[in-house]
């Protein structure tokens, strides 16, 4: 019964791609291409950083590749290069589609998008050249930020514009999440930049600003984009509506109300007021409410009929992993608060990694596999590479996550028990080496992804083969009742 991945994802669902898809083809392809280039660049930088953690002599004479620069450069390339480009691409496509809009003026979006990418490039190069601020997630030199903000607002205006131009009277769950993300990110970012670099606040209030921003970026940009994709794709790929859709608004609102406060929990034990730390902890625990609702909506929708549904399509497997990662992330965060998990360890890194990779990237991968054939009206050239990408990224995610998790637990125990520092370091090595291996898997996956993408987006000659592939009905028909209508 399980269709070939080739059939399910390599389909050319011409019937389903309408004028809406065609109108955003160029901007979406532009944003996705830039995003994927950043994904490759960022993962290469992250890989160098990962090696340096256990083999400090690696490329040690290159000042611009020293750990303290290559790590933030990787983070910024991945967050602002991959995260924002790909996030905007997916947001634009989803919004146009759900609003049934026909978007004019895509070329202006290309200009704004180019400036965005120019800004990120200057920012990342600036970090490598030594102008890093060293404030986590906000390392890009402040001089490029105004340019980036303007470029972002111009890009985001198209997402909002799609809604205004749309003919659909409905607003679907995916759209709530997209609106929240597209709007919250610039707000967070502008406020944090202003309070840290343009009119800096004093003392550890800076750390509160930084934690607020980081928490917000993760929970109000990366997570919502991932959730928007999952809400949209799951019912289509499973062929059934979202379970308990009527509670989705409660999930949304409870999430939005708490999310802005969660960042403060990054400061547990830091020299900031105790009530601020407590507010972060309480907000993290309150996130259990949206967690429960969204888990019913998303993960339960996948699991209700048994895991065999996952055999249906590789795109669905990506989506399902993202849904599971969401539940795991938030559940884990609450559990860490309750158990008083060790701070300042690899555990903190693994939390962020889970959101960035497990939820956001996995969801965006599934969206790209789903949407690209529809906007270019061609099939994926290498179905095998899609499977390879899934296997590599899923195993890479697991191995990397488990390594950081266990390494963090070990480090926490060692630090608490007064183990000599050289021993602490020695104990962490196997975990860090394992994390590097996970990095290899992820990078191989990204290469498979990029190769397929370049081929489908830029090599028209594969068009011919597309017609040969039989297209499973449930993936090509637009069933309006499945568009998670409220």
């Amino acid at each position, binding site marked *: 019964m399980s269709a070939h991945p080739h059939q399910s994802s390599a389909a050319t669902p011409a019937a389903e791609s309408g004028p809406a898809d065609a109108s955003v083809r160029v901007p979406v392809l532009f944003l996705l291409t830039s995003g994927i280039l950043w994904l490759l660049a960022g993962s290469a930088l992250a890989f160098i950083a990962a090696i340096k953690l256990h083999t400090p002599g690696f490329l040690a004479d290159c000042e611009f590749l020293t750990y303290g620069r290559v790590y933030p450069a990787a983070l910024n390339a991945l967050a602002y290069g991959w995260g924002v480009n790909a996030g905007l691409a997916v947001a634009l496509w989803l919004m146009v589609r759900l609003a049934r809009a026909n978007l004019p003026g895509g070329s202006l979006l290309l200009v704004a998008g180019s400036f965005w990418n120019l800004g990120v490039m200057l920012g990342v190069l600036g970090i490598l050249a030594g102008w890093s601020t060293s404030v986590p997630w906000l390392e890009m030199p402040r001089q490029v930020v105004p340019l980036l903000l303007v470029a972002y607002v111009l890009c985001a205006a198209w997402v909002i514009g799609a809604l205004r131009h749309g003919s659909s009277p409905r607003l679907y769950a995916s759209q709530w999440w997209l*609106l929240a993300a597209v709007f919250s990110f610039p707000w967070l970012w502008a406020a944090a930049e202003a309070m840290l670099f343009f009119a800096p606040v*004093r003392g550890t209030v800076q750390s509160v600003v930084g934690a607020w921003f980081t928490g917000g970026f993760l929970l109000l940009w990366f997570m919502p984009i991932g959730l928007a994709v999952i809400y949209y794709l799951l019912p289509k790929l499973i062929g059934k509506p979202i379970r308990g859709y009527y509670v989705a608004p409660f999930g949304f609102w409870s999430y939005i*109300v708490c999310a802005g*406060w969660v960042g403060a929990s990054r400061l547990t034990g830091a020299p900031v007021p105790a009530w601020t730390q407590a507010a972060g902890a309480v907000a993290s625990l309150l996130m259990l409410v949206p967690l429960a609702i969204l888990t019913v909506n998303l993960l339960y929708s996948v699991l209700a009929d048994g895991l065999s549904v996952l055999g249906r399509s590789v795109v669905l497997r990506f989506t399902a992993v993202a849904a599971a990662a969401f539940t795991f992330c938030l559940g884990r965060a609450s559990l860490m608060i309750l158990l008083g998990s060790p701070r300042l360890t690899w555990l903190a*890194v693994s939390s962020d990694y889970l959101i960035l990779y497990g939820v956001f990237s996995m969801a965006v991968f599934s969206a790209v596999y789903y949407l690209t054939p529809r906007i270019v009206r061609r099939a994926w050239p290498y179905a095998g590479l899609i499977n390879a990408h899934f296997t590599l990224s899923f195993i890479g995610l697991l191995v990397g996550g488990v390594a950081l998790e266990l390494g963090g637990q070990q480090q926490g125990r060692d630090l608490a028990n007064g183990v000599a*520092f050289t021993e602490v370091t020695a104990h962490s090595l196997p975990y860090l080496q394992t994390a590097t291996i996970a990095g290899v898997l992820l990078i191989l996956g990204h290469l498979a992804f990029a190769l397929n993408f370049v081929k489908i987006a830029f090599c028209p000659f594969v068009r011919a083969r597309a017609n040969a592939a039989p297209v499973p009905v449930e993936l090509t028909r637009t069933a309006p009742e499945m568009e998670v209508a409220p």
Partner: protein
Amino acid sequence: MNRATLIFLGAFLALSFSWAGLLLSNVNSYGGLAPHFDETDNKAYPAQVPGLAAQGAQVYADLGCAYCHTQQISGGEPSADLTRKWGERESYARDYIREESVLLGELRVGPDLRNFGARDSTAAAIYLHLYNPQIETKGSTMPPYAFLFTTRKIVGQPSPLALDRVKVNVPAGSEIIPTDRAEALVAYLLNLRDSYEYPVEKQKNTPPKPPAAPHGAAEHKPEAHK
């Protein structure tokens, strides 16, 4: 469009609420925290950061030392940071008010450096450590910062800052000396020292002992012999 406006408004209000609740209120409550002037010492604490150390703080930021080193000593019961002698007391918000950019750090790949200047380390030892951490600490995963040093021919007197020839390989007639950036960085590291006990924080953190001494006396005594 109405539902969308509602979502915008909701997201805006929610985020503004967290901004006001977390940031604005903290700016108001301790964004203006002042140094404590100690009349016995006739000095203000925390002390002004000397010029070279302030430059070193920028080197610390541009090289990203903060990705591996925290600068925050945890208190609490029991505090492993204190038993490790990373600090003499827990860190207070007041410790950081003179810093242009506060880098608390999120991960401890290396030891906490908040009170590093108080661990009697010499400039020479730090230079050697920065040049190649493996020399003194086998198995260290700290990156070598050899690019903060230059090799030059010795003309006249050898530099007092030159690395110990016994420990590192130096071509005959040459010496390896720190660059200006390395000097600033070391000045910064040696200046990291939070040992002063502020009366206000001290009082808040020590559980009240049952028969309390007269108020004024309790406030001024503790730091007298620090």
